[in-house]
C-alpha cells in the first residue's frame, strides 16, 4: 500500500455482529484520496441512493485521509459519510479532535458500519482487534458522561466518538460527537441519527501505529519552515478563536440576525465576541491533533446561573446561530447552550436555525405564543435552552423542530415556508450570501446542502488570495464576473482539504495550494502536478453530485431560501446587495460541464474518469441519471 495510508478498512456488520477488514483499494485512493472522497466512493459502492437513511441499508462511514496521524499541521481530522436523514441526499460531516488519529493509529484508514443492532452497542477498536460490546448501560447518557465511562471501561488514553440522546431519538439534526468534553462534532446532515438508528452508541479507538511517509525528512523540513509563518499570520485566530471575528463579520453585514431579517447588531456582536470571551470565561485554547493554531475555546463558568459549564466553549457558528439568529447576547448563556448541544449531541448550526424559525413562527401567529409553558420570543436565553432540551428529547415543540426547518415548515404550512432558511433541507450556516456573492451559488450547489465550508469561497472575497488558481488578488465580494468558475474552483479545492484531511483554517496561516501539493507528494510519493491535484478535487465533487442526481437532485433544487436571494438586509455592512444568483449559477454550470438541468454531462463524466461510478449510480438510481 502507498505511503500515507494504513492500507486497511474495518467493516462492522451490526445485524450479523461480524467484523472484518478489507484492503484499501489503491486505485480508489489515487482517484478519491481519502476522507470525504473515499467515503463518497464507498457510499456509492455499498448502498443504493434510494435507501431509507435511517434503515439498516444506509452505511455509516468514518474515513481518515492520508494526512491523518502524520505531522502535517492541523491534520487531526476525519470525515463521517452517509445518506442524510435530514436532507435525503448525500451527507457528510468533518470533525477535528483526536479520534480520527486514534483510529488510524489503531491501524485503519476507516471504519464502515453496516446493518443495525437490535440492542445498544459500542465498538472498542485497538491494535489487537475490534470488539462489539453491550452499551445498554450507556443508552440515554450524554456524550461527556459516555466518554468518561468508556475510557474507564477501556483505556484512559482511548478516544471516543459518541452520540447523545438526540442521536438515539433519531433527531434529524443530531451530531456525531468526538473527544468527550472537548466536544469536536461531525455535526451537519443529522448523521448522529444514522448512528442512533444503528443502535451504535459509541466507537472507542486507541493505538500507536503511524502511517508510512514517502519522504519523512523532506516533509519535516518543509513543515518546520512553514510553522512559524502559520503561527504569525494566524495568531489572532489562536488568541481569540473563530469568534474573534464576530464584530468584523457584523460590520460587513455577514452575521445573520433575527432569523436573517435584521441587518445590524453592533453591541450584541461585541458582547458575544471572542475578545469578550478572552476577558471573561476563556480558560485555555484547545488544539485538534497536530494543530499549531488552536482556535478551539476551552471555557469555564464558576458562578451565576450557568456555573458548572466546563470544557468546549462556543465557536463562531455556535454563537452566531444560537445567539445572533435568536438575538440572544448573553455569552455565558450561550456557552451553556453550546455545552447542552454538545452533551445531547446536536448540530449547533441547525439547532439555532430551527429555534429562530420557531420564534418567528410564533411571532407571526403560526405557532402558539406559549408552547409547553415557554413564551417564544427573541432575545430570550430561556427559550433557547428549553428548546434545545425539547428538540433532543423530541418533547413538546421539539418533536416538530427535530425534523429540521424544511419539514417543520411544510408541516405548519402557509407563511412558515418563508421563515425556513435552508438549502436542500440543510439550515444555513452563519455567513450571509448577501454579504458575499459567491456564497449564494456555493450554498445552492454544495452537495450536502447549505454549507460555508464546502467552498469556503468568502475568505477569498475578504482576506486571502489563491494566486496559483488564477486569483492573485482578494476578490470583490459584490462582483459577478467570473464568480461561477470561482465558486467551482474553491469547491474543488475544499474537496481536497476534506479528503486529505487537514483543517481549512491553515489557509489563514498563509498556506496555499502549492504547499498542499508539495506535502501531498512528500507523503505519498506520487509526484503529481497542480492540475492533476485539482482534478482529483473536481472528480470528488462530481462524484457526490452524481449521487445526488441519482437521488433526484437537479437545477430545481440548486437554490436557497427566497429571503436570502430577494430580501435586502436593509442596514449595516451589506444593506442593499442581493446576490445575482441566476447569472452566477449559469456561469457555474458552464464551467462545471453540467447540462442545463445540472447533471454532469457524459463528456464531463469521461474527462474525470467517473464512468464506472456513473454507471453504478444509474443502475441503482431511483431516478434516471
Amino acid at each position, binding site marked *: 500500500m502507498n505511503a500515507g495510508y494504513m492500507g486497511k478498512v474495518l467493516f462492522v456488520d451490526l445485524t450479523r455482529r461480524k467484523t472484518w477488514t478489507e484492503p484499501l483499494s489503491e486505485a480508489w485512493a489515487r482517484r478519491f484520496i481519502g476522507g470525504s472522497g473515499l467515503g463518497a466512493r464507498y457510499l456509492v459502492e455499498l448502498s443504493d441512493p434510494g435507501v431509507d437513511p435511517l434503515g439498516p441499508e444506509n452505511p455509516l462511514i468514518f474515513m481518515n485521509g492520508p494526512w491523518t496521524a502524520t505531522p502535517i499541521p492541523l491534520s487531526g481530522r476525519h470525515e463521517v459519510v452517509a445518506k442524510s436523514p435530514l436532507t435525503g441526499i448525500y451527507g457528510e460531516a468533518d470533525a477535528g479532535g483526536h479520534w480520527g488519529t486514534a483510529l488510524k493509529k489503531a491501524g485503519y484508514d476507516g471504519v464502515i458500519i453496516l446493518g443495525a443492532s437490535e440492542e445498544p452497542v459500542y465498538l472498542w477498536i485497538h491494535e489487537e482487534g475490534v470488539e462489539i460490546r453491550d452499551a445498554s448501560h450507556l443508552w440515554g447518557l450524554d456524550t461527556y458522561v459516555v466518554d468518561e465511562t468508556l475510557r474507564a471501561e477501556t483505556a484512559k488514553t482511548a478516544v471516543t466518538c459518541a452520540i447523545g440522546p438526540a442521536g438515539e431519538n433519531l433527531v434529524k439534526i443530531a451530531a456525531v460527537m468526538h473527544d468527550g468534553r472537548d466536544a469536536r462534532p461531525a455535526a451537519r446532515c443529522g448523521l448522529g441519527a444514522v448512528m442512533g438508528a444503528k443502535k451504535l452508541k459509541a466507537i472507542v479507538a486507541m493505538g500507536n501505529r503511524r502511517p508510512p511517509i514517502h519522504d519523512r525528512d523532506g516533509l519535516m523540513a518543509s513543515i518546520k519552515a512553514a510553522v512559524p509563518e502559520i503561527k*504569525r*499570520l*494566524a*495568531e*489572532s*485566530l*489562536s*488568541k*481569540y478563536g473563530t469568534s*474573534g*471575528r464576530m*464584530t*468584523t*463579520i457584523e*460590520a*460587513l*453585514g455577514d452575521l445573520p440576525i433575527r432569523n436573517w431579517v435584521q441587518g445590524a447588531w453592533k453591541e450584541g456582536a*461585541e458582547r458575544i*465576541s471572542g*475578545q*469578550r470571551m*478572552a*476577558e471573561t470565561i*476563556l*480558560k*485555555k*485554547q484547545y488544539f485538534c491533533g497536530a494543530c499549531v493554531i488552536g482556535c478551539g475555546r476551552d471555557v469555564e463558568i464558576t458562578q451565576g446561573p450557568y456555573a458548572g459549564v466546563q470544557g468546549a466553549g462556543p465557536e463562531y457558528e455556535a454563537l452566531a446561530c444560537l445567539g445572533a439568529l435568536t438575538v440572544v447576547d448573553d455569552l455565558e448563556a450561550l456557552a451553556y447552550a453550546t455545552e447542552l448541544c454538545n452533551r445531547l449531541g446536536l448540530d449547533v448550526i441547525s439547532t439555532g436555525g430551527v429555534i429562530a424559525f420557531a420564534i418567528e413562527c410564533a411571532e407571526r401567529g403560526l405557532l402558539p405564543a406559549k408552547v409547553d409553558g415557554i413564551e417564544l420570543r427573541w432575545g430570550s436565553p430561556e427559550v433557547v435552552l428549553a428548546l434545545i432540551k425539547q428538540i433532543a428529547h423530541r418533547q413538546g415543540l421539539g418533536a416538530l423542530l427535530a425534523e429540521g426547518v424544511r419539514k417543520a415548515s411544510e408541516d405548519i404550512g402557509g407563511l412558515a415556508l418563508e421563515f425556513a432558511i435552508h438549502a436542500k433541507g440543510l439550515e444555513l450556516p452563519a455567513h450571509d450570501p448577501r454579504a458575499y456573492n459567491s456564497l449564494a451559488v456555493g450554498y445552492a450547489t454544495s452537495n450536502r446542502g447549505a454549507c460555508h465550508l464546502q467552498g469556503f469561497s468568502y*475568505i477569498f472575497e*475578504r*482576506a*486571502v*488570495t489563491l494566486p496559483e488558481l488564477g486569483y492573485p*488578488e*482578494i476578490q470583490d*465580494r459584490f462582483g459577478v464576473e467570473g464568480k461561477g468558475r470561482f465558486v467551482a474552483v474553491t469547491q474543488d479545492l475544499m474537496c481536497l482539504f476534506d479528503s486529505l484531511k487537514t483543517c481549512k483554517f491553515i*489557509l*489563514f*496561516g*498563509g498556506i496555499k495550494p502549492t504547499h498542499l501539493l508539495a506535502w501531498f507528494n512528500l507523503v505519498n510519493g506520487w509526484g503529481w502536478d497542480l492540475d492533476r491535484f485539482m482534478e482529483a478535487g473536481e472528480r470528488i465533487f462530481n462524484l457526490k453530485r452524481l449521487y445526488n442526481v441519482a437521488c433526484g437532485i437537479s437545477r430545481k433544487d440548486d437554490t436557497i431560501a427566497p429571503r436570502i436571494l430577494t430580501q435586502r438586509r436593509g442596514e*449595516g*455592512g*451589506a*444593506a442593499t446587495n442581493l446576490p445575482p444568483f441566476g447569472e452566477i449559477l449559469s456561469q457555474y454550470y458552464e464551467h462545471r460541464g453540467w447540462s442545463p438541468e445540472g447533471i454532469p454531462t457524459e463528456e464531463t463524466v469521461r474527462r474525470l474518469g467517473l464512468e464506472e461510478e456513473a454507471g453504478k449510480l444509474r443502475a441503482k438510481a431511483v431516478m434516471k441519471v
Partner: protein
Amino acid sequence: MRIEVHLHPPFTQVVGTRTLPVELPDGASLLDLIERLRMDYPNLFPSLRSPEREEEVRSFAIFVGGGEVLPLSYKLREGEVIEIYPPLSGGVVPKLVQKTRRLIC
C-alpha cells in the same frame, strides 16, 4: 487633512481609546495611515511585516470606511471615519496576548 480612526477591541486596549484623530498630508492613502499608526503605536500590529501587501495586512486588521473594506490604495478624504476591526484571518496584539496568557494560566 484630519481623519478620525474608530477602534474596536482588541485594538482599543492598545491605544487606550475608541476614537483617535489622525493628521495626515493631503492625498494620503490607507497605506500611509497604516504606516503612521505603526509609528505612533508600535504595539498595534507588531507582527505585521509587509504593510504594502494587502493580504498580509488583512491578517492583522480590517479597515472599514462607509461600511466597506478599504484597499491599501484607498485615498483618504478630509473628515472621514476609518474603522479598524480585528482581522478575519489572523494577526496579534501583544498587550492583550499577555492578558490572555494570564487568563490561561
